[in-house]
C-alpha cells in the first residue's frame, strides 16, 4: 500500500502544487490520478519515488517513509513508465529492458535472457530484441517502456501518462494489454493521465485532482460516475456519464425478446438486416453478445434503423432482440 500522509508541495517562488493530500493506494490495484493540467497529479506521482520531495507530510510504501531510503535503491525497486517511453536511444530494445536488473547487479547475460521473456509478455516478437528504439513505432516503444519497468519485477509501478503519445487505435490496444497484464501481475500501480476515459477504464481507484493540488474526489470509477462529489467532478467526468456508467455491466442479465420475422437472417441464422418495406432491408448496424457491455447495447439500439439491438450467440446466430424501451425499463428497474 502507498500512503500519502498530509502531503504538501510548495515550489519556491510561490505556487502550491500539492495541497494537504492524504490518500491510500491499495496494494495490487491500479490507482489513477487524473485532473486538468497543473493540478498536482504528476508532482504527487513523483513524490512516490522521490523524484520530487514533499515540502511537508510523508509518503510511505508499506508503512515505510520513502524519505528515509536511499534514492537510487528505492527507485530500482519501483517500475517507472514515462510518456513517450523515454527509452535509451543508444541501447537495443533488449538492453533497454535489461537496464534495472543490470543496475541491481545481475550479469548482462542473465538480464538479457529475462528481458527476452518480458518482450514476449508485452506482445513484442523476439526479432525486436536487437533493434534500436528509433526503429520502433510509438506503440512498440511504449511496450518496451512497460517491459523495462517490469524487468526487475517490482511490486510498485509508476506510470506517467504512459499511453498519451500514441494514436487512438494503438492506445485502445495498449489499454487491453495493460488490463490483461495487470490481471496476471497484480502490481500496485499509480498512474497519471489527463484523460478521464482512460482513468475510468484502467483504474480500480480514481483520484480526481483539481487546480491547486487539491483532491476533489476518490472512488471507484462506478462511484465517480454515479455519484460525483460536486459540480467540478460532475463536469470533469463528463455530461455523458450516464451512458458511460453502462460500461461496467454486461448484457448477461438483460432480458431479450424472441427474434421477430422482420429480422432477415442468412442461411446460417446470422442477422442481415431489418425488413422495413417489401423490398427494403436495412442493415442492423451491429450486434451484441451477452458478454458485451450495456453501453454497446444502448449504442446499438440508438444506431438501429428500428431502435432495436440484436443479440447473437457465439456462432453469430441471432438469438434475441432488445428494443430501446425495454433497455430503458431494465436500467430503471436496476437502479431500484
Amino acid at each position, binding site marked *: 500500500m502507498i500512503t500519502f500522509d498530509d502531503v504538501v508541495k510548495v515550489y519556491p517562488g510561490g505556487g502550491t502544487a500539492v495541497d494537504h493530500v492524504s490518500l491510500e493506494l491499495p496494494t495490487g490495484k491500479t490507482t489513477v490520478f487524473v485532473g486538468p493540467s497543473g493540478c498536482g497529479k504528476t508532482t504527487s506521482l513523483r513524490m512516490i519515488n522521490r*523524484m520530487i520531495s514533499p515540502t511537508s507530510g510523508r509518503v510511505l510504501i508499506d508503512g515505510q517513509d520513502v524519505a528515509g531510503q536511499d534514492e537510487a535503491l528505492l527507485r530500482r525497486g519501483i517500475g*517507472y513508465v514515462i510518456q513517450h517511453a*523515454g527509452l535509451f536511444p*543508444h541501447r537495443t530494445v533488449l538492453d533497454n529492458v535489461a537496464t534495472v536488473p543490470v*543496475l541491481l547487479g545481475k550479469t548482462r547475460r542473465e538480464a538479457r535472457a529475462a528481458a527476452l521473456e518480458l518482450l514476449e509478455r508485452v506482445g513484442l516478437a523476439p526479432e525486436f530484441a536487437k533493434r*534500436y528504439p*528509433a526503429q*520502433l513505432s510509438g506503440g512498440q516503444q511504449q511496450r518496451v517502456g512497460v517491459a523495462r519497468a517490469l524487468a526487475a519485477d517490482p511490486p510498485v509501478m509508476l506510470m506517467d501518462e504512459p499511453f498519451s503519445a500514441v494514436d487512438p487505435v494503438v492506445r485502445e490496444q495498449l489499454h487491453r494489454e495493460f488490463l490483461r497484464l495487470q490481471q496476471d501481475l497484480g502490481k500496485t500501480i499509480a498512474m497519471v493521465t489527463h484523460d478521464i476515459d482512460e482513468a475510468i477504464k484502467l483504474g480500480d481507484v480514481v483520484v480526481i485532482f483539481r487546480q491547486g493540488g487539491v483532491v476533489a474526489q476518490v472512488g471507484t470509477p462506478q462511484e465517480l460516475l454515479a455519484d460525483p462529489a460536486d459540480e467540478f467532478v460532475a463536469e470533469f467526468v463528463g455530461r455523458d456519464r450516464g451512458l458511460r456508467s453502462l460500461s461496467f455491466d454486461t448484457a448477461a442479465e438483460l432480458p431479450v425478446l424472441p427474434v421477430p420475422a422482420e429480422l432477415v437472417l442468412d442461411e446460417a441464422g446470422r442477422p442481415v438486416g431489418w425488413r422495413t418495406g417489401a423490398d427494403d432491408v436495412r442493415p442492423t448496424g451491429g450486434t451484441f453478445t451477452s458478454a458485451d457491455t450495456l453501453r454497446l447495447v444502448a449504442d446499438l439500439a440508438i444506431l438501429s434503423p428500428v431502435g432495436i439491438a440484436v443479440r447473437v450467440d457465439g456462432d453469430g446466430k441471432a438469438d434475441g432482440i432488445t428494443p430501446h424501451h425495454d433497455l430503458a425499463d431494465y436500467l430503471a428497474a436496476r437502479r431500484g
Partner: protein
Amino acid sequence: MINYLQNNSDAVLTALRQHIWLALLPVVLGFLIALPIGYLGVRFPWLYHPLVNVAGVLYSIPSLALFVFLPVVLGTKILSPLNIVVALTIYTVALLARTVADGLRSVDHLITESATAMGYRRFRRLIDVELPVALPVILAGLRVATVSNISLVSVGALIGVGGLGQLFTRGFQLFYLEPILVGVILSVLLAGVADLIIVIIQRAVTPWTRFQGGRA
C-alpha cells in the same frame, strides 16, 4: 616530385611522423581535459556561458603568437616541441569543452529523467547514458579539432618545429616547389585519413544513429 620523395624519403617520413605526433597527442590530451570541463558546464548551468566565452577567446589567439608566448610562460626552450603540444592542447580544449557541454545538453531530458527514475546514480548515469547519447555531437567536434590541429602544426615550422611544415619552409628558402607540394599533399592526406578513421570509429560505437531521423 617522385624524385624528391625518393631522395629525401627519410626526411619526409621523419617530418610526417613528427606531424602525426604533434597533431594527435594534443587531440587526446585536449579531449581528456575537455570532458570534465564540459561536464562542469552542464552540471553547473551558471558556468556554461563563462565557459563558452573563455573557450572562444582562447581559440581566437593566433597560433603563432601562442607558439612564441608559451616558452615565456612555461620556461621551455623556443624550439621545444612541447610548446606546440601545449598550444594545440589549449585549442583542442577550447573547441571540445564547448562541444562536450553542448553534447550533454542536447540529451533529451526525458532520457536523463527516465535514467534517474530507473535508479541510476549521477556518475553512472553520466557514463552509461548521457555520454553515449552525446557521443555523435562530441565526435563531430573531435573531427573538427583533429583536422584543425593537423593544419595548425605546420605553423610551428616558422619557429623551427612543425612536422610537414618544415617542408614548406625549406621549399621557400630554396625557391624549390617540390617539398612544398609534398608537404601540402601529405598534410591534406593526413587530415583526410584521420577524419576517416574517426568516422569509422563513430560508425562502430554509435550504430544506433543510423536509424535516427525517421522518428524523433
